[in-house]
């Protein structure tokens, strides 16, 4: 059936019940532009109508929180009057349709969220999920997404310092592109979106408005992709050069105090920006659509919902309007006063002298219906049958094979395509546990990471939620940075189907368990649902972006082994093969995560880093201890000999995952003994080897696996390029 046979509201993505509710709220039938606006603002993408009831479980407060969820980005205090803004956001559906522009505009959107807080963007990260690279389609989506991220980030001069990627068949038809941006600002420079001051001007600046991305939020981002092929042209087009000018221009104007309020135009365009500014400020806005600079002739409804990129909306006092327009002109940007702040609460839009929209802004921004998702628990699968998994005859060969798997191998192919240095603040580059970025004008530095345990979230969502948060915290701790804030992007399939709603609720509960134990608040986030097609749903993927703080920029810890004779210690419990990258299956038998003990292990590593005891530290994750040893050895070309106790399967000792482990090195046995004395009773710390030589050797009892650094490096560096060849 073609879409033109459907009633108007259904074409726009509204249900019959939702369409019936609108006249009840308005006391009259909506105009067509109003109906279009409701359809966008009441979409899942804009309203979180299926996820909002679940998000209340997150801890969102803390001493450092200057701005929690609900604004364009979260903001936390990092001392000395400096604040850091952070937010992660998905651009999954657009990237699945047109990966280059989809990924590029995803970066652009999140950067404008940070700009809107009055912050200067200083770092980007990307969390990516694609199908296996044996699929031509996935290779295309992956390489073009990386190209789009690189193009945009490189052109705007914000370094892409980190992120992660994983490949799994479950993402074959719905890839994930999540972009995180971090910015710095002075406390007193914090801007918010709430409009105020009746009589103030509403200024639209940046790019002109065109027909691109119309309906993106409702019909593209809030439905399964193959429901309707006609939705596919709804992807936006990127212009990073204009974004850079917007950044420079906003920084000048923000520093001059020229903005009363600032908001970016993202999903649902002017509709979303204006209704949120009005609703948050409890004021009205009166907009003349005839004044909006256009690229092409557009109908009023199209102007209201166009998702043309690189646009911002500001509230400006009348006496500063000329200054704002002049500064924009200096940057070759259009800037137009398209309306004004009014008394009352209504959003009014005029076209050709006629009022085409006149409704309370809160109906759009805050009165979307809320749905309880069904919470149908799923059975945990049977534990992995280890008897069916023979131990490797040649453990060294298995080690090499694992090092070359795209999920484990070096991600150099990706990060060398990104400018990760621009700004001259990147202290720890991509390839380690977390990126470390100097805070300009300060002795401090921040550490940044994104992580997710999607396979565990599928089989045991509460455990997966915990693991996602704790993995992020371990990555920060391994650089010596104390976790202080998180942003999250909950990528899930259709919540109305199967056990997805339950998994979403459980994952949030698990994330909250770990965040509370760490004392880390969530300050911003994003939900992306409906990541599934008729044949395949993604793994539930609750991505955690985490911010850590280093009191001294020159005291960060790297993951590379130091010098011959350094002592290697393993903090944490043994790993298991069940659910590991090596075994590739089940996960049903993974032990539950003891949050308190894992947090105690993180605390121990942080204290050791604070005391200057650590030469190196590396989180033990995908591929297990053997991969961690190889990575630390390859980082600076220094080998190691590791001896593990017998009594376990060799492959489990080498490649088992979990256990909240971190591998650290210290100068000598005295330092090792001191670190062990610092450990609380319930945190396991074992001396497992020494640094040195030009090979990596792991003994498990009498069995030995050895790779020369050249062999390990060849496998580790070959994996990703070979899979793409």
């Amino acid at each position, binding site marked *: 059936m073609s879409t033109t046979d459907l009633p108007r509201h259904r074409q726009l993505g509204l249900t019959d019940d939702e369409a019936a509710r609108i006249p009840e709220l308005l006391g009259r039938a909506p105009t067509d532009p109003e109906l279009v606006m409701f359809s966008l603002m009441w979409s899942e993408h804009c309203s979180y109508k299926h996820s909002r009831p679940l998000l209340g479980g997150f801890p969102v407060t803390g001493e450092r929180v200057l701005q929690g969820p609900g604004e364009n980005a979260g903001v936390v205090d990092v001392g000395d009057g400096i604040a850091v803004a952070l937010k992660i956001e998905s651009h999954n559906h657009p990237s699945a349709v047109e990966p280059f522009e989809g990924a590029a505009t995803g970066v652009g959107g999140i950067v404008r969220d940070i700009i809107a807080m009055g912050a200067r963007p200083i770092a980007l990260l990307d969390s990516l999920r694609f199908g296996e690279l044996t699929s031509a389609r996935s290779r295309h989506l992956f390489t073009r997404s990386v190209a789009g991220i690189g193009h945009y980030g490189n*052109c705007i001069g914000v370094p892409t310092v980190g992120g992660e990627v994983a490949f799994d068949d479950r993402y074959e038809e719905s890839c994930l592109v999540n972009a995180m941006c971090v910015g710095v600002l002075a406390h007193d420079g914090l801007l918010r979106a709430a409009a105020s001051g009746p009589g103030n001007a509403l200024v639209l600046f940046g790019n002109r408005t065109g027909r691109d991305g119309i309906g993106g939020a409702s019909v593209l981002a809030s439905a399964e992709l193959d429901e309707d092929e006609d939705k596919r042209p709804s992807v936006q087009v990127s212009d990073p*050069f204009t974004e850079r000018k917007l950044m420079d221009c906003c920084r000048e104007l923000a520093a001059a105090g020229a903005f009363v309020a600032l908001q970016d135009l993202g999903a649902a365009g002017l509709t979303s920006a204006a209704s949120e500014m009005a609703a948050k400020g409890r004021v009205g806005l009166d907009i003349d659509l005839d004044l909006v600079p256009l690229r092409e002739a557009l109908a009023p409804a199209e102007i209201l919902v166009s998702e043309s990129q690189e646009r911002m909306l500001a509230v400006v006092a009348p006496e500063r309007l000329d200054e704002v327009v002049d500064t924009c002109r200096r940057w070759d940007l259009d800037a137009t006063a398209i309306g004004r702040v009014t008394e009352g609460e209504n959003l009014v839009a005029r076209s050709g002298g006629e009022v085409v929209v006149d409704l309370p802004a809160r109906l759009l921004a805050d009165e979307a219906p809320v749905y309880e998702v069904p919470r149908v628990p799923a059975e945990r699968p049977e534990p992995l049958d280890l008897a069916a998994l023979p131990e490797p005859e040649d453990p060294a060969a298995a080690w090499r094979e694992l090092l070359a798997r795209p999920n484990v191998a070096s991600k150099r192919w990706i990060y*060398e395509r*990104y400018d990760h*240095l621009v700004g*001259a603040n990147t202290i720890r580059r991509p390839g380690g546990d977390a990126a470390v970025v100097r805070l300009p004008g300060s002795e401090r530095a921040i550490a940044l990471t994104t992580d997710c345990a999607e396979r565990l979230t599928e089989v045991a969502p509460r455990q997966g939620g915990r693991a996602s948060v704790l993995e992020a915290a371990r990555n920060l701790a391994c650089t010596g940075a104390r976790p202080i804030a998180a942003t999250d992007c909950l990528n899930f399939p259709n919540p109305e189907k199967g056990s997805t709603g339950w998994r979403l609720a459980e994952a949030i509960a698990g994330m909250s368990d770990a965040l509370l134990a760490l004392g880390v608040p969530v300050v911003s986030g994003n939900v992306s649902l409906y990541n599934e097609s008729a044949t395949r749903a993604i793994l539930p993927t609750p991505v955690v972006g985490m911010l850590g703080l280093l009191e001294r920029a020159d005291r960060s810890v790297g993951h590379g082994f130091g010098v011959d004779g350094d002592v290697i210690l393993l903090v944490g419990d043994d790993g298991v093969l069940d659910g590991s990258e090596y075994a590739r299956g089940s996960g049903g038998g993974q032990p539950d995560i003891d949050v308190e003990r894992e947090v105690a292990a993180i605390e121990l590593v942080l204290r050791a880093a604070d005391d200057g005891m650590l030469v190196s530290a590396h989180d033990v994750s995908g591929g297990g201890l053997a991969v961690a040893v190889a990575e630390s050895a390859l980082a600076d070309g220094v080998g190691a000999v590791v001896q593990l106790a017998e009594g376990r399967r060799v492959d489990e000792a080498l490649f088992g995952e979990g256990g909240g482990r971190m591998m650290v090195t210290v100068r000598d046995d005295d330092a090792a003994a001191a670190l062990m004395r610092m450990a609380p009773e319930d945190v396991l710390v074992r001396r497992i080897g020494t640094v040195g030589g030009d090979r990596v050797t792991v003994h498990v009892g009498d069995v030995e696996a050895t790779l020369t650094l050249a062999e390990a490096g060849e496998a580790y560096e070959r994996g990703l390029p070979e899979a793409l060849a």
Partner: protein
Amino acid sequence: MTRVAVVRFPGSLDHESAARAVEGLGAEAVEAWHAQPELPEGTDAVLIPGGFSYGDHLRCGAIASRAPVMDAVRRHAEGGGRVVGICNGFQVLCEAGLLPGALRRNATLSFVCRQMELEVADDATPWTSGRPAGDVISIPVKNNEGAWYGDPDAARVVLRYREDLLGSTDRVAGIASADGNVMGLMPHPEEACDPLLGSTDGRLVLRGLIG
């Protein structure tokens, strides 16, 4: 105190880190706005930083090379004043005809961000702080169109890559004008001026702006 004018085009990205690096060497950094036909009063030397000037529309550096400020840069160079162009700045200097050759797309057909080892090829210019020919220094590259193409005999090759990654003619990383006062290089010395960032070899190049 040496006064270094750091040129700023729309789309310049490295002006701040370049200014910081220059100040770290004891010089004063001042902004030279692209639309101004003159350099700031008292300018002793000029730095054209990296970035994507004018969005790199048309061709990298092509529009910037015709900006009003470039007339002043040209006069400064013709008068014997020192000028360094880094990355996009190098592209601008080639497009402006102040240095020979052109920059074309990397042989990798991709953007490349990597720490690179460079060999000093000509030790008689101000841009290597007297390091002898053959000395190796470490400075990162980050570009998409970083392969210099031209006649190496028509240029003073100051720095060469040790590894032929980008596909430059004769592994050229940086060249100077015949008089040596104008220098262009694709690697980013301003990102190698702080021990915290892993290398301070960039100072060897930027000292050429001073004295």
